[in-house]
């Protein structure tokens, strides 16, 4: 458990922070949001060159050879600046899936494409009834002769689907809709006939789409990993995704508190600064307490990712999702309250923190599901 940040981590944090301070101010971010597709591919490629997309990919495969802890530091800084480029959904998640499903030579090729920024990958796994249950997949893959498959079903919240060059789709070759057995992964070209996209922006302004797959036919080379046994791959990748989301949320909350402190120290009412009123001081104190509890929980979850497995790891990840999700809502809505009317205006950054955090945790699965997972006996 890393209770005190190592010198290497601090150095990485410093590099990311300096880059984003120079290149990611709020006004420029606003302009990017208002144009299509809501992030920039050029920036994505810069992140690739800086080694951030492949931060946890082994050096031999063209990555930076880091750990989940390094990824967490990058995400934490990305959170502070509300970075729009989808690092979690289009790097952390697909790398997590590919790392454990593709055989080495193929994996090396794909990860190189992803980490270098040449190809944008996204994962189409969520289905709206699943609510966080990674095993819930109704999309069917029907086997045809010659190792070909026909995919039929619906996928929701596929981040940056329209911009992606490759989509990793989960589908069921056997089993009932929430059984772990019978899940497979397919690598699809988004332009294949039968893939329909309903594109929209999420409330944080980022692009996503719901996918309808109508008898999409793929060849044998589309199958990633061992047919029918993708459940552990998906579980592990989504555990990394959730912990990464928690890291991003901790960074966002730090920025929320900093923004609020600045405002309370400058805004005046009834003859003195807002920071002099005890009711407001106490709310700020509660916000700080929530942030520090969240940071502690993140350390615990990162430890679980590296040192634990199976049920215990699932439980730790669910705990982090619940505590940090709850803290995020309290911290971000308190900040709006403390900003008064300014807080509900779209031109001010403070409301954007709440919107981003709301989306972040909705994509991590419902509180209901994670409470159940946390309380399930071994």
């Amino acid at each position, binding site marked *: 458990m890393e209770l005190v940040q190592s010198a290497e981590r601090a150095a990485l944090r410093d590099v990311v922070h300096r880059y984003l301070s120079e290149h990611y101010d709020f006004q420029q971010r606003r302009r990017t949001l208002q144009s299509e597709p809501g992030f920039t591919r050029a920036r994505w490629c810069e992140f690739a060159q800086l080694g951030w997309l492949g931060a946890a990919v082994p050096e031999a495969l063209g990555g930076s050879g880091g750990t989940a802890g390094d990824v967490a530091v990058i995400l934490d800084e990305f959170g502070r600046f509300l970075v729009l480029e989808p690092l979690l959904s289009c790097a952390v998640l697909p790398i997590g899936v590919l790392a454990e499903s593709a055989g080495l030579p193929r994996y090396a090729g794909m990860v190189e494409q992803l980490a270098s920024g040449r190809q944008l990958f996204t994962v189409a796994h969520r289905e709206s009834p699943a609510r966080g249950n990674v095993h819930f997949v109704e999309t069917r893959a029907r086997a045809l002769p010659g190792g070909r498959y026909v995919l039929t079903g619906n996928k929701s919240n596929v981040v940056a689907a329209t911009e992606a060059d490759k989509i990793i789709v989960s589908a069921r070759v056997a089993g009932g809709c929430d059984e772990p057995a019978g899940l497979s992964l397919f690598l699809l070209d988004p332009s294949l006939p039968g893939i329909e996209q309903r594109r*929209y922006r*999420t409330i944080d302004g980022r692009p996503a789409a719901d996918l309808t797959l109508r008898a999409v036919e793929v060849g044998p080379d589309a199958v990633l990993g061992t047919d029918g046994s993708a459940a552990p791959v998906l579980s592990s990748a989504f555990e990394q995704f959730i912990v990464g989301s928690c890291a991003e949320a901790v960074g966002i909350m730090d920025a929320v508190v900093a923004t609020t402190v600045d405002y309370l120290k400058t805004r005046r009412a*009834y003859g003195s600064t807002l920071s002099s009123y005890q009711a407001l001081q106490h709310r700020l104190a509660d916000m700080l307490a929530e942030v520090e509890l969240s940071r502690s929980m993140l350390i615990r979850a990162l430890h679980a990712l590296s040192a634990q497995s199976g049920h215990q790891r699932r439980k730790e990840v669910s705990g982090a999702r619940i505590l940090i999700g709850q803290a995020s809502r309290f911290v971000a809505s308190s900040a709006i309250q403390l900003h008064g009317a300014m807080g509900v205006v779209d031109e001010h950054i403070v409301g954007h923190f709440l919107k981003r955090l709301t989306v972040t945790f909705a994509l991590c699965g419902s509180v209901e599901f994670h409470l159940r997972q946390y309380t399930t006996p071994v």
Partner: protein
Amino acid sequence: MDFVQDPGNAQFRTEVREFIRTNLPRVYPEAGSPAWSLRFHDRDSVRLWTRALDQRGWAVPHWPSQWGGLGLSPVRRHILSEELATAGCPHPDAISVDFVGPVIYTFGTPEQKRRYLPRIRAADDFWCQGFSEANAGSDVMQLRTTAVRQGEHFIVNGRKLWTTNAHFADMMFALVRVELPGQRRQQGLSFLLINMRSPGVSVRPIHTIDGRHRLNEVVLDGVRVPVENLVGEPGKGWVYARMILANERTVIADVRSARLQLEQVRGLMQDCREQTARLAGMEAARHQLARLEIELDALEVLELRALHEPPGEQTVPSMLGPILKVRASELRQRISELAVDVLGDRGVEALPDPEPNPLPTEADPLACLSACYVTAGYLFQRSATIAGGTSEIQRNIIAAVGFGV
């Protein structure tokens, strides 16, 4: 509820229901369709319904009969609002009929009454409230907008902020500081009626975090306002404004919409349960909904108590109004949080820009759009504890009453 003493109230409720049943489909032929319930009521649409209500005196039921009202008791008025809200009817514009109307008929000159009240009642004019400024939200003593007397006019200069509906309002009632020739600027605030079509008035939209346009910044740059537009005595504007803030508190508390919101969440949970039947039954959400509903049960009685407080005792400030405002607005936020939790990853989609017109009639796109509205509502609810007096200010008032200060 059975606590109501007057049996005539039940009769009144029946009359209102009957009126809605016969008139709503006449005014809005598409009323009752699922798409209609999502519809945003614009100015013209509100005007149609306000005029329909006015045939029964229900556009301005609390106004004195001389000005077309019925002098309806607070309890009956509450019944009327409840039934209208339940049926999904647009409400007559509160800023016009509830905020400025009573100030004009209580403190206005006979000429002001004749000129403005009939136009408010018929929804000819829509009003906006020019109180807040950049450095004066809760602290109204910081207001800076000036009105300098020059002959038969005031020359008004200043900037009003967070002005709801200014982009379509015909008139504004504003708090300003009057300067009379040969005197120094008044410490007190004055209540002035400003025509929004006057030269020098400009309106800039402010979008809120739900992506909508309700709020504005209004710049008043050398606007000439006839002196007869001053309401009551100069320097007493705050007395009149307080009457409005008490009303605003009740409007924003909006206990009825908390109940509607709660029923909406129950509906969402049923939808989700069917889909997730095999994933167990949303137990935590059901318990949370029950807790919120129990609190709402109490709050509805608290609202009735506030409505039944004898007017004579209003000289002693009551704490029920501020308690209602704080707890109802916070409860609505918690209900909207539950709604977003229940929607899960279906609840992250932003309102489409621009919103589709006409609205979809098929079930699937309608459900998506309806989820967008729920999420937008969750974001906009953040303003419920800020607008109309922040929760912090309301708690100060409650404590002051508690301490007998």
